[in-house]
């Protein structure tokens, strides 16, 4: 079987001031090539002004089986959302 290049996760900043967002993944032999491949695949329609790549193996992900313990408890705690305040008239765009 053909040995394939490692997988890299790609993050693109769409314009100055915005965050880098995960857009997908690519294969590449090293970091430099990962930038070039990401540039060719994810910015060809003018999607970005900056690229981050990180080898996928360096990402630690939460276990889907832990979802109940990790995320369920937050579901019934609506008081953590700041929706109970009466905003003064003068405050706009909140």
């Amino acid at each position, binding site marked *: 079987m053909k040995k394939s*290049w490692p997988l890299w996760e790609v993050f693109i900043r769409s314009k100055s001031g915005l965050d880098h967002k995960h857009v997908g993944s*690519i*294969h*590449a*032999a090293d970091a*430099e*090539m990962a930038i*070039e*491949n990401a*540039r*060719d*695949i994810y910015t*060809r329609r003018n999607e970005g002004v900056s690229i981050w790549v990180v080898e996928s193996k360096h990402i630690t992900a939460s276990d889907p089986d832990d979802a109940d313990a990790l995320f369920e408890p937050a579901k019934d705690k609506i008081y953590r959302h700041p929706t109970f305040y009466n905003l003064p008239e003068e405050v706009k765009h909140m």
Partner: protein
Amino acid sequence: MDANTPLFSYLLQLGDNALILGHRLGEWCGHAPEMELDIALTNIALDLTGQARALYQRATELDGQGKPEDDLAYLRDVAEFRNVLLVEQPNGDFAQTIARQFYFDAFNYFFHEELTRSNDAWLSGFAVKSLKEITYHLRFSSEWVLRLGDGTSTSHEKMQTALDDLWYWTGEMTTPSALERQMAAAGTGPDLQQIKSSVNDRVNDVVSRATLHLPTGTWMQSGGKEGRHTEHLGFILTEMQFLQRAYPGNEW
């Protein structure tokens, strides 16, 4: 404007280099060694096709006969094309494609850098825009020469063979034709003798960092700039022009 003015012919020559190399790279679509390379090579192909289109459009504009730029791409035969012989050479393996691209990009980069100083406003504007694309092309092909040359013993051997095999097509690029001398004298086109050392230095630098070496042969093949081509161009045109030849004037 007479279709045979020097500027018209010069625009065609530049356009032909871009069109034919772009077509060659397009042949990799669906066949590249990795999906990522498939996209990278066709991206470069599209850049080159776009440059060719702009140059042909400008040529038809000067020509003033209201012909579409497609006529220049699809209705000329082999002897009317003025591209250098290097760009029509077959894709071969990936190393051959990279060697062809690298030799061409190194030339093309310094050529367009100089073309930005053309006294023809359209050409200098075109050069400024294209140089950004070509800068990336050169970065891409240089990186691959480095990787393959300084990679495994197999990739090293293939890259060296490719540099050797394509070497004698490279001299033509920096050897000025009568037309190019005329354009340089008029301040419209780069003086090829002047950019030659920059091109050679860049090629030498990348090749030596890649632990490879350039052939020492000094005999160079030529003829493309006068319309004398290798057998390969006819096959390229057969495929590229089929639709317009079989269904004249067809659009979609």
